[in-house]
């Protein structure tokens, strides 16, 4: 029998409460990671179709070494960085705002053999949990950018 700790930062929306630094920082991190996952996911698809970092660099007017650094992690990305990288890959970002739901987490006091399974979660969905909402929770999708109209000279 071992003790397990869960650190929960998910909160119900309460317009009168002040958000903690933990909540603010956590969701900033989540957004940053979602953006990175979106860009890298699309780059890997393009890369498998022989689209190189060098081509991406040329397309968005950066040096190849800058692309290498940017693709390695989202540490210093700005919104402009995301826009440039996605556009270079032929996409733009699709966005939607998703209500924050409660963590649905209960603090486990004891764990069992199951706890060490990578499939185990501290919290399980509540009765009104809608599995179909999982896709929407991602909140960010990249959309192929529309072809630019050709201007006849």
């Amino acid at each position, binding site marked *: *029998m*071992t*003790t*397990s*700790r*869960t*650190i*929960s*930062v*998910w909160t119900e929306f309460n317009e009168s409460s002040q958000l*903690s*630094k*933990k*909540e*603010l*920082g*956590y*969701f*900033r*991190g*989540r957004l*940053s*990671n979602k953006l*990175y*996952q979106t860009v*890298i*996911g699309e780059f*890997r698809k393009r890369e498998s179709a022989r689209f190189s*970092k060098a081509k991406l660099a040329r397309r968005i007017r950066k040096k190849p070494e800058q692309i*290498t*650094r*940017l*693709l*390695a*992690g*989202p*540490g*210093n990305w700005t919104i402009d960085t995301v826009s440039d990288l996605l556009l270079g890959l032929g996409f733009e970002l699709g966005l939607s705002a998703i209500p924050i*739901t409660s*963590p*649905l*987490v209960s603090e*486990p006091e004891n*764990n069992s053999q199951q*706890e*060490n399974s*990578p*499939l*185990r*979660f*501290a*919290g399980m*969905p509540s009765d009104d*949990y809608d*599995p179909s909402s*999982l896709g929407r*929770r991602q909140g960010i999708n990249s959309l192929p950018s529309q072809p630019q109209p050709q201007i006849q000279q």
Partner: protein
Amino acid sequence: MSIQILIEKCLENETLFILHPSAPEVGAKRIIYLSPVVMEFLGRDDFRSSRLLSELEAFVMGDIVSISMIPRNARSEMMGMLEPIENGLFDYRSRAPRPGLRLIGGFARKDCFIALGMYLRRTMNEPEWRAAIRECDLAWAERFKKHLPMMTGVDPSDYLSNYFCMD
């Protein structure tokens, strides 16, 4: 005695903790064990610790992890192999917001990372960084005896699923 049994013992005596994602998405793909120091840090109410928490949760959820298997080559990568490579230690690199943090640890098996030390990279010179790696090497030996960190070479797919490597 297998390393998994030793991990269980560490969980019992609270020299290791397992990170359970609080996010409601379903489907953890990896495991991360944390030393008490790291776990205590993650419980703080500040921007730095919460950013690290969100990153580690993404790791557990199986998100893409960028990794460099060449020591000292990692710049923006999330993980990097450390010298000497035969020790099988890696650092998990949390770069934003400053100051950057480094978690040093090793893999018990594929997709199972054990982080034993946490350091502020910016404040460390080369001897201090080497000492930190040595400290984590000793911490590993103290917990897992003859079971060394997984070291099968420099193919990232041995250590991680869903990785991104630009070496």
